[in-house]
């Protein structure tokens, strides 16, 4: 299942290449991770009805500040090596509660940047499992496949909860208020003087 905001094509591509059942959900005005959490339980039952062994959910990761991982599932943060060495620091909340960080396209960057990228993931999540991959040649894929294959099955979908509280509550801007300035909004508000009080993940 692919969750994206406006358009996505992965469902069609994967269905054609691997002949597996796929589905896509557009979140439109809603945050894609918010949407994902809304539909997750239905999606598990959809997969169960198809007798699938594995349900893969890919979210758009719109702002990269989320931790939409749940209990019983295997949480993967996918980071592109070409997004720059600082990107693990920018995506910190997304990495912090994941089980594994998968770095893609490592064949395209220099040795130094590979090492620095890994260092910065460790800064965010010191004990996270990291896999460097180049999917074209298959580099690193064996570790990813082993990790997925050895993850325990879901026992009870009704017991699944989020691992942390992502900053994705529907806010006044999400519901369509367009005014700028904290005076026009309610809920979580921040004047400039206290703007450093940002969400830092769990």
């Amino acid at each position, binding site marked *: 299942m692919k969750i994206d905001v406006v358009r996505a094509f992965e469902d069609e591509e994967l269905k054609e290449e691997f002949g597996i059942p796929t589905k896509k959900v557009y979140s439109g005005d809603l945050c894609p991770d918010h949407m994902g959490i809304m539909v997750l339980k239905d999606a598990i039952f959809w997969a169960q009805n198809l007798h699938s062994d594995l349900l893969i959910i890919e979210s758009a990761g719109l702002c990269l500040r989320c931790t939409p991982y749940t209990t019983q599932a295997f949480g993967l943060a996918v980071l592109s090596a070409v997004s*720059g*060495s600082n990107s693990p620091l920018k995506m910190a909340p997304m990495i912090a509660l994941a089980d594994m960080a998968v770095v893609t396209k490592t064949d395209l*960057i220099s*040795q*130094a*940047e590979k*090492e*620095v990228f*890994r260092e910065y993931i460790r800064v965010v999540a010191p004990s996270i499992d990291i896999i460097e991959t180049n999917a074209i*040649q298959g580099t690193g894929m064996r570790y990813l496949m082993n990790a997925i294959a050895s993850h325990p099955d879901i026992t009870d979908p009704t017991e699944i909860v989020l691992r942390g509280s992502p900053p994705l509550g529907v806010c006044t801007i999400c519901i369509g208020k367009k005014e700028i300035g904290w005076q026009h909004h309610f809920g979580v508000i921040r004047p400039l003087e206290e703007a450093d009080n940002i969400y830092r993940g769990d």
Partner: protein
Amino acid sequence: MDYDQINEIVILPGTNRTGKKEGFEQIVIRTGDTLSIVGPTGSGKSAFINDIEVLAQADTVTGRRILVNGAPPSDDMVRDPAKKPIALITQNTRVIADLNVSRFLDLHIKARKKHYAQDLISKTIELANEFTGEKLTESMSMTALSGGQARALLIADAILIGGTPILLLDEVENAGIFKERVITCLKEFNKTVIFVTHDPYLALGTDRRIVMQNGAVVNVLEPCGREKNVMARVSGIDYFLWNLRERIRAGDLISEEHVVHRGIGVPV
């Protein structure tokens, strides 16, 4: 395992695209060996060095296995780029970081968390400048380097900062570097080097040539000096072409006397 404890890697055969076993029992590569991989485009040259780079365990498309010091490598060695004894530099290797040369090298030094000499950054730049005609300086932006400069710097970085005992160079000769100087330097540092190359000079200059066809190794040539005479001649031709290239790059009009090369019998 420290880098200096690694003295041998062994490549065990996989299969070609039709599932037939490759034409060798094992390829043993010892410290300081030089090899080249030759074969037509699409014959599996890059896949071969990729198997070495990923330290394949019959889990890539080729089915090859790589042993380090006679045993399958540890997970740590395979997975941590700072512990892997292999550096791969290809024509696709890019530097994305928006940093200048000295900050880029400093970042790599810091990632290694080892004690390094104070002047390592300037030493690395000095070495890179031996490989390229377009001089690098500390304050140049990494993203603005030419292909030749970037390749020269990455090779110098692999030798001095990375310190990896095994270098895999995938068609780097096209990037405008002084290949003779690179080869002598790699020998001085006793590096094991594997070239993927279409360059006759580079291919003839290595101890062994691995010949690829249809996704598999079909032959391992070990000339043992039998190509020595040819090598001298190829070196002359190579120098001649280099000279010609430089003249064309400099904007010269090429006359007949430039291409009538004396002594080495280049067909005009």
